[in-house]
């Protein structure tokens, strides 16, 4: 029998390709390879949310891994599934990343059962980031509702670590009720930093709650906004960022100076599965971070 056609080994092609940048996005044969990582700590935040500190096991990969605030990773629990989770820790932190995960579906439920030391997989980072470098020398409004504080934490850390690059910094956070407040152990630390203004509100207080009660937009009443030199980063459910952004637009902030992060159910993170399409825009490639003008033009976004 004559061999007319010869097998083509794609892994060879993959080896000769040069890496494009810090992560392995260009490495053909590594597209579906996960970094094996260890859950080094689990911090209970509320009834529904836990913070996972996750360290990539391979030293070189861990060294090379870097991300920008607003990006996400695909977290794989082998045998159970893979989900997109935004990174919640400081981009400058090299040892591990932090992922704040709400128990909502199959993978998150199993993750909530996992013990410290469990090996999971991560792929990424993927997606666009908050263009924090453009915000240098300006005021920054960091506004989060509910679970939105998770993705907002990365830019908060960046701003704190580079405080001198920015003018006035306001962190505004609101949830439905006091028991749902995330990272409340960090508020005092943030508040004590000079020139960072932290405001927290809940929609419905309880007996022990002594703080503010009201909507997140109420907090804006207490902030002096200089529209020409202010950027805003808003994370939260669509109904929340729509209210906030409309309010900020009235204050005179340009729509392309407001950034939001959108939630969709990605299955690949690489612009292939179409599950995160908004209209025909891939949230995983063109997002999850969009400026508000773009969001308004995405017919399905809000």
């Amino acid at each position, binding site marked *: 029998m004559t061999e007319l056609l010869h097998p083509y080994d794609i892994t060879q092609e993959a080896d000769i390709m040069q890496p494009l940048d810090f992560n392995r996005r260009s490495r053909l044969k590594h597209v579906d390879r996960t970094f094996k990582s260890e859950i080094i700590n689990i911090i209970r935040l509320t009834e529904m949310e836990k913070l996972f500190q996750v360290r990539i096991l391979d030293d070189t990969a861990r060294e090379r891994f870097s991300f920008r605030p607003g990006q996400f990773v695909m977290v794989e629990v082998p045998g159970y599934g893979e989900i997109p989770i935004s990174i919640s820790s400081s981009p400058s932190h090299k040892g591990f990343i932090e992922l704040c995960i709400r128990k909502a579906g199959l993978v998150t439920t199993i993750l909530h059962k*996992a013990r410290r030391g469990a090996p999971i997989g991560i792929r990424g980072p993927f997606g666009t980031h908050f263009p924090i470098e453009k915000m240098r020398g300006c005021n920054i409004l960091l506004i989060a509702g509910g679970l939105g504080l998770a993705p907002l934490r990365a830019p908060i850390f960046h701003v704190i670590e580079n405080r001198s690059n920015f003018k006035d910094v306001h962190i505004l956070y609101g949830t439905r009720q006091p028991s749902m407040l995330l990272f409340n152990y960090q508020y005092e630390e943030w508040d004590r930093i000079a020139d960072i203004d932290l405001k927290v509100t809940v929609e419905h207080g309880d007996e022990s709650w002594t703080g503010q009660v009201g909507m997140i937009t109420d907090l804006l009443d207490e902030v002096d906004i200089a529209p020409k030199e202010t950027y805003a980063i808003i994370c939260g459910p669509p109904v929340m960022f729509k209210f906030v952004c409309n309010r900020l637009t009235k204050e005179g902030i340009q729509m392309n100076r407001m950034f939001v992060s959108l939630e969709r159910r990605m299955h690949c993170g690489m612009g292939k599965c179409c599950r995160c399409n908004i209209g025909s825009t891939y949230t995983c490639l063109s997002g999850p971070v969009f400026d508000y003008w773009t969001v308004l033009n995405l017919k399905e976004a809000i």
Partner: protein
Amino acid sequence: MKYLGIEPEVLKIAVFDFTGCEGCELQLANKEETVADFLKVLDVVNFREISSVEGDDYDIALIEGAVTRGDEITRLIQIRKQARLLVALGSCACFGGVNRLKNVLDLNKVNREVYGKDPKETLPARAIKEIVPVDLEIPGCPINKDELERIVQHLIWDIPFQFPVYPVCFECKQRYTTCIFELGQLCLGPITRGGCNAPCPAGGLGCYGCRGPAADPNYSEFFTIARERGYKKKELDEHFNFFGGFEGVG
């Protein structure tokens, strides 16, 4: 399998049969390549069809068959008291199944026809959920063992199981099956819940809807399609009523 630092739970399980053909129970012993592993993750404390052990200490009760007699109601209520999780296994347990077809008959008359001077007790066939609350329904005539294996894994890990929302057509296409309508037969595939891997159309048989309706079925368009292709009410009814999963549709 120990993973993520969690020891998997061994499920104390009991299998009970009511009115039906016991074909769904039989599936527990089918798919022979994995049946040994399947039985290892379970602690079978009661399974009359294959075991003489008759324990009452179980967490999960798998119920096969419909309810058609008074003693079955008593037995079912007793099982419900014991079981942490009560699972309706198969179309008979979920919908009443083919047993439901007798409900339109005059049961006294039928009884006399079959048993003459010794008529037997019988009630209209009912699904398990019509008697006691059901925690999980696994439809199919018979159930799909692959799906059951996955459900058992989810029970072991105590994580939610999601049935497919798509209709049978979707999996039919993924098997390269030629549409049954194209071959001139009626098929409930477009409105029936998938997840069975569409064995009937692949074998040249239109779907009779043993898994009940898909999520958000488009009945009005389905009837339009059937009408356009000349199917009469009798044919449609025969399909819709066959397994009892489409009660009130048609």
